[in-house]
């Protein structure tokens, strides 16, 4: 918790996950990525636009949140291989018409950008 700072953060345009594979393009100034789940899908992350953090010569890290929006039909979501889950628990998202929050904390070398991903289930809401 930063005690004095702006409390605002960036939110991406909603991403439609309507095919078997969905790529989420991560950006420097965005913290939350809303994803509309319209098909069973496998998620992957594209780090190519994270120019600010990748430009650092030393190791880098970033946190972001996926806001996964489940519609009336429950869709399955497969997270990128290699995510290390908090307490070893992969999020269970099996209720219709719910929004799920999954937080990622990633770090890695500046180039090539193949960071380590730490995932944590943060809760759900209707």
């Amino acid at each position, binding site marked *: *918790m*930063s*005690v*004095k*700072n*702006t*409390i*605002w*953060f*960036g*939110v*991406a*345009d909603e991403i439609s996950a309507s095919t078997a594979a969905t790529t989420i393009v991560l950006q*420097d*100034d*965005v*913290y*939350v990525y*809303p994803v509309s789940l319209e098909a069973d899908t496998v998620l992957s992350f594209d780090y190519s636009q994270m120019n*600010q*953090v990748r430009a*650092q010569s*030393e*190791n*880098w*890290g*970033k*946190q*972001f949140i996926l*806001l996964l929006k489940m519609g009336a039909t429950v869709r399955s979501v497969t997270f990128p291989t290699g995510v290390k889950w908090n307490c070893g628990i992969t999020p269970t998202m099996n209720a219709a018409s719910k929004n799920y*929050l999954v937080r990622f904390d990633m*770090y890695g070398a500046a180039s090539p950008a193949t960071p380590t991903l730490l995932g944590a289930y*943060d*809760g*759900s*809401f*209707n």
Partner: protein
Amino acid sequence: MLRRNLAETSSPDYTTTLTSDVIPLTRNGETFLRRDPGAMTLNASGYTPGAGEIVTFKLILVCTGASVPSLPFSWIWDGDNAPEFVNPGIYVISVTQPQEAVDGTTWLASLDQFYPYSEQMLGQIEYRRMTGAGTPVASGLRLALDEEYRAYDVDLNDSRFDGETEFVFTVMPPSGTDGDNYQKRGFIAEVTFYTTGTDDISLTFHSDIKNLDFEGLWRKIVPGKKCVVQFFSFDAGQTIFASLCGEFQ
């Protein structure tokens, strides 16, 4: 060697909130927050730095005046100016151990910032007493968030609240927009509820606030305990969620 430099982006940083006066260092670059600290000690046994690695951590001490903290006597302070913690407020302290530059065991510390505790830290609270026709109704309490502050303390025994013991609580999103991106912004604010009085306080979160896996938007605030709730939004405050972070002594 594992090192992490969190980039200067709009992503919020996170800290480890300490529930005791021991600082359990387990990785480089960590930030710890301790509210009303006592005699702080450092336990660095959980992290083994690489050869020549500069180990740093940050300490945020929230001092409400309930105690006067102390830090390890062996720390060497920038300009020999160890903070005396005479004023309540938030002290942000950086600590580093440049192993090869000194002797591998010496911790160098500096007070980076001090934010005096003031009414502004509490945000703008609006209190409204509501009474029904012969039936007591919980009074309304509304906290207007300030875009510069992520953390708020709310003493439900504040003299302004007339000894009320039942509240309906809500938050107002911070002001401050930047035109085109207005709808594309979110916020997170953390509110600590407590009472300095002797009565339990019933705190109900307004029905406009959505529930994030929270067992009922109602908490009983008991004397001596603090209840921390995060309020956040993904649409510039049009929809606000609440998430219970925890309750601690």
